[in-house]
């Protein structure tokens, strides 16, 4: 069994998904829910948590079974496992709150098609020990949730003048309607990507300058 990296669980195992390989801002995976359900902070949070649960459960199970899944049928197996946990989340959200379920709509079921989850199963869970896969999935899920919240918060504040449903600016605020329309999703995502790329380049430049000085 080929393995990538060593077998120890480090802070890096977890934080990889938070920053260096953030699924949304770095790998640009799972863009469908990122753009579609981030029109309010609460939707973004619920979607992030639901995806995190699927990521954790499928990652752990696939990692447990990784030695007994033949290579030829691995994708089919992963999809069945992921679909199972998506169905479980679907029922769970209906049981928790019908309003939330109605707000998220078809995007709960579409978690199954989120390439981030299948990508993690194929690239990580199938090659690492369960605990390590679980830790990594936790980081990836947290990174995904934070990214969704980044978009959801900006879009809700600008587009509806509220945050988590709490009115921020009073009745005299004119909401930027475009922010809660699909176009707003692209604009906000673009702005965040721009910011992160600028930070990254600035950091590299500073490191180069520091290296040149010494």
């Amino acid at each position, binding site marked *: 069994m*080929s393995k990538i990296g060593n077998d120890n669980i480090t802070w890096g195992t977890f934080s990889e998904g938070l920053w260096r390989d953030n699924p949304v801002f770095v790998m640009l995976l799972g863009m469908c829910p990122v753009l579609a359900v981030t*029109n*309010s902070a609460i939707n973004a949070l619920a979607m992030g948590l639901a995806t995190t649960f699927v990521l954790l459960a499928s990652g752990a199970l696939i990692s447990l*079974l990784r030695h*007994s*899944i*033949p*290579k*030829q*049928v691995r994708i*089919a*197996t992963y999809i*069945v*496992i992921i*679909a*199972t*946990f998506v*169905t*479980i989340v679907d*029922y*769970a959200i*209906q*049981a928790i*709150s*019908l309003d939330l379920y*109605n707000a998220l*709509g078809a995007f709960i079921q579409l978690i199954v098609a989120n390439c981030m989850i299948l990508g993690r199963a194929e690239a990580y869970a199938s090659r690492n020990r369960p605990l390590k896969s679980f830790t990594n999935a936790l980081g990836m899920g947290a990174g995904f949730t934070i990214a969704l919240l980044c978009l959801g918060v900006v879009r809700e504040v600008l*587009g*509806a003048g509220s945050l988590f449903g709490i009115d921020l600016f009073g009745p005299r605020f004119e*909401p930027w*309607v475009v922010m*809660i*329309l699909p176009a707003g999703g692209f604009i906000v995502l673009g702005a965040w990507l721009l910011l992160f790329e600028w930070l990254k380049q600035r950091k590299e430049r500073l490191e180069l300058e520091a290296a040149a000085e010494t």
Partner: protein
Amino acid sequence: MSTPETEVMQQPATPAGPMIRTLMGIAMLSGFLVVLTYQLTKPIIEENQRRAIEAAVFQVIPGAVARKDFVVNETGVVAVTAENPAEGIPIYAGYDQAGQLKGIAAKAAAQGYADIIYLLYGYEPECQCIRGIKVLKLAETPGLGDKIITDANFVANFDALDASLNDAGSDLANDIVTVKHGTKQNPWEIDAISGATISAKAVGKALNLSAKALLPKLAPQVEKLREDPPRQPPEQGEEQVN
């Protein structure tokens, strides 16, 4: 001998047995998990849906505190009980404390901007008008299409929206229509929302379709609903079914 190339070469060697065993095992495991979750959450989900409908019924029928479920079909109005799930258009009759019929709630649906909008509306037989609507499900753009719930001026359309029948009782006297914002003149017109015209039109269309289909059948049966408030001996309800 563990380079990727050799692994690719070895792949055809895997016999069918383990593959079938894996897929079957996974399918059984996933079936078990899904059924388990379904069984665990079913009563909670049903309770949630029942509560959502119940809250909506009391919202669209002002003054109602008790409700009873009926269906309208070829035989007239039939009470729905747990033992007797009758077929037909479901309606929910709302009664006040004294058992007086306050109104009737029914479902309506029409294509909106993003998806079908599902509504519950309250019809009051006395004024032959619609006294309230409640959106059960919508996927309209938040901030625009959902103004059909939040816009006070739009909601005021349903304080008393005329839905009276023609003299023969076979159809609505006037179709319920959504008109351009600010041009409402007749009691059967719905004043649209500027910026959410498609969603507002969908509400008008849904109400018109449902009222046209339901009210001509329902009107002759209203007396039956009046005489059949909830908390009466169940035998009466069963008699009506027969």
